């Protein structure tokens, strides 16, 4: 997997070549609020911001679908509802039911969570059928499948992408935002390579500024899930006035650096940490920085 690590500086350099207008960047953003405690006023504000900035969609929990659809009626902003969220451990039938209800209440896009446990069991038929159930229930609406890449090795990420594509979904997405990792260059790059150019890749989790967003686009994402949409768009106004894309040291962008013993399976944690042993950039891995 040395080549994956070597890809980080390459992608970091490619970020400088991304030419994207603020309007185009806004249209890649699913403006997200998936909090367990944000009340109505907060959801209203989310919709107002999405309208003001012309984001692609608002991404919300199911109980807010109808509310947001009403708020956004007559605008170009879609409603994106999560299903089987955030653990992906509900049954295919339950996921299908949630999907139908969300579509019925005005959702145009569904972000569902893959059953990672069944994937770890190598029960790939179950995983495929689980995704298919959502795709069929969505009736042609866009379906994105969250892999939760923080629980997966690089090889597993590639394998999961292929299953999702076979199941007829439209996008693979890396993270719920509640898992161990946010979006990282290697994961998004692997996902893009696995699904090919004609499929969607959504990067989500920890994308807090325009540099992060551009990195993900350079790695292959064509959709960004973030709760920092306003900040990204506002900070992007600075981008044109100077060269902000000074290269970051590879370790800061690498999932191995972010691996956490407390939040991921022990075997996966060890897998990521072992990548550092032969990494060509290991001398940069100074933790106090």
């Amino acid at each position, binding site marked *: 997997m040395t080549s994956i690590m070597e890809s980080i500086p390459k992608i970091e350099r490619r970020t400088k070549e991304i030419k994207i207008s603020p309007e185009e960047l806004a249209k890649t953003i699913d403006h997200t609020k998936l909090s367990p405690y944000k009340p109505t006023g907060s959801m209203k504000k989310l919709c107002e*911001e999405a309208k*003001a900035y012309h984001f692609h969609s608002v991404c919300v929990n199911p109980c807010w679908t109808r509310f947001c659809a009403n708020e956004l009626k007559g605008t170009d902003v879609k409603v994106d509802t999560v299903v089987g969220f955030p653990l992906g451990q509900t049954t295919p039938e339950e996921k299908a039911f949630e999907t139908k209800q969300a579509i019925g209440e005005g959702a145009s896009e569904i972000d569902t969570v893959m059953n990672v446990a069944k994937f770890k069991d190598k029960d790939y038929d179950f995983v495929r059928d689980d995704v298919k159930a959502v795709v069929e229930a969505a009736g042609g609406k866009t379906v994105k499948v969250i892999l939760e890449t923080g629980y997966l090795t690089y090889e597993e990420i590639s394998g999961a992408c292929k299953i999702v594509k076979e199941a007829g979904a439209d996008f693979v997405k890396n993270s719920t935002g509640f898992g161990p990792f946010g979006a990282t260059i290697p994961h998004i790059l692997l996902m893009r390579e696995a699904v090919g150019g004609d499929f969607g890749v959504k990067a989500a989790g920890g994308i*807090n*500024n*325009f*540099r992060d967003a551009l990195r993900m686009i350079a790695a292959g994402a064509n959709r960004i899930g973030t709760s920092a949409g*306003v*900040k990204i768009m*506002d*900070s992007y*106004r*600075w*981008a044109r*006035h*100077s*060269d*902000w894309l*000074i*290269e*970051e*040291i590879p370790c*800061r962008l690498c999932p191995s650096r972010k691996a956490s013993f407390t939040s991921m399976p022990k075997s996966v944690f060890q897998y990521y940490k072992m990548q550092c042993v032969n990494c060509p950039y290991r001398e940069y891995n100074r933790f*106090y*920085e």
Partner: protein
Amino acid sequence: MNKSGGARILRINLSSGKVTEEEVDQDTRRKFIGGRGLGVKIVFDEVDPGVDPLSESNKIVFAVGPLTGTAAPSSGRYAVISKSPLTGTIFDANSGGFFGPMLKALGHDVIIEGRSGDPVYVWAHDGDVELRGASSVWGKDTHETTEKLLEETDRRAKVACIGPAGEKQVKLACVINDEHRAAGRGGLGAVMGSKNLKAIVVSGHKKTPVANESKFRETVKRCLMTLDKNPITKDSLKIFGTPSLVSLINETGIFPVRNFQRGYFEDADGICGEKYLERIFVKPYACFGCPIGCGRLTRANGEGGGGPEYETLWAFGAQCGVSKLEDIARANYLCNRLGLDTISTGSTIGCAMELSEKGYLTEGIEFGDSEKMVELVRKTGLREGFGKEIGEGSKRLAERYGHPEVAMQVKGLELPAYDPRGVQGHALAYATSNRGGCHLRAYMIGPEVLGVPAPLDRFRAGGKAKIVKLLQDVSAAVDTLILCRFTSFALNIEEYASLLSTATGIDYSAEEFRKVGERIWNLERLFNLRAGFGRKDDTLPPRFLKTPLKEGNSRGRVVELEKMLGEYYEARGWTEEGKPRAELLEELGIEGYAR
């Protein structure tokens, strides 16, 4: 007696007592806007760079901007511009509170020139300007002065004044308004003192109209939404105020300790934002029209007042090895009353402590001796005993004792509360600052530590010069409006340009707005070059270039200044000696100044 008109200038000659009124031509307004821009232009045009800053020939400008006193967020500021007695450079300092909007409501910027034979204050109200005798308040502290002058004039008026430090021309003296807001740095209070000018008292009733009311309100609404979305302006500064920085900067390993000998303060818990809330905090307050409200009213040892802010917590805290919050607050209150800049005062005392520690100074002043520190603040403000030497600033103090390397300053201005060794871009901003060691000319802590507007690797030197230049330019431009610098955690250049355009009715693109800042920066540079500054002065104390920090999260680092400086001059379009090229001045429309 004069009648006020629109946005005009009052020229008050203290030598003759003559007051005149002038228009500012459209070209100057367009190119320099107001605030710092206008003040720098006036000082450049009218003050000989070689002049003694405390002589009759120096001038001091009080200026507001097109957004001062409007509905624009955090617009309650005014600027003071002069040649600094501390640094010898052209210098601007600005302050919040409520004096600025009142000056705006008066409808004038003010130029003070000459020197009065006796102490006076200016009383400007609704078109009338009087020079009144100040013998009743001469020798009084800033609180007593404010109270007395409000009693003598109008309770609704606002006062910007000096304390005993300014009167005695202490080079660390500041201008205090609203009792605890300060145009703090550079010793501009001493310039007032040298002119026998105790205060400016203003009361105005003019509305501050904007050119395009509906578009302006729309822009303001959008800016307020942005400020309300940003975690720094919405949460950190509002809840904890600037003391919220203590823990973060300390953990980053760039919280200077004992005159920058270390970058990690073991006793930081004693002075952090949480402890501040627990021990001395009374309530928050906001300057005019500010949705952030970072101001803190505090009480300690039976005394109350505004602050201390982050920089002051550091200057009388870690810099002097002190962790008693109440003693830091005492020193802060004393500075406000005496009219002293807390950063330079605390930092110079820290310098004296290191000189003493190393045996270069016979005066026994030990790190951590907070009683002696507070006493030294008092002596400095009153120019008594060893306080006289502190009052000259750290550069002169350390030179006097034969060890200039112990002064943590750039161009004579004491460095603030960030050790540059752990933030390369910020180090470059310190070295190249036109007014000396200052964190506000280009707040690279934003991108390098806070990730605003985008995170940059703080240890990387290469590529930073262009960003430092951008922030310097934009900061200078924002200082013409004048908006509080804290808004830039959330607002971007386009929003500033939009506020300005809708308020004035003159269209500025984001790029034109930035260029205003670049124009000001180059004009300041030209002044400083003529005052004898040059590449040799764009540097840092040798400690930062040669001695790595030993502990904390920035250990092992020194500043790679030479590499960055070359890049910086190139980015600026300057020669290798740091002189603006003729074609640059032409492009900026200030070619006539390259005489």
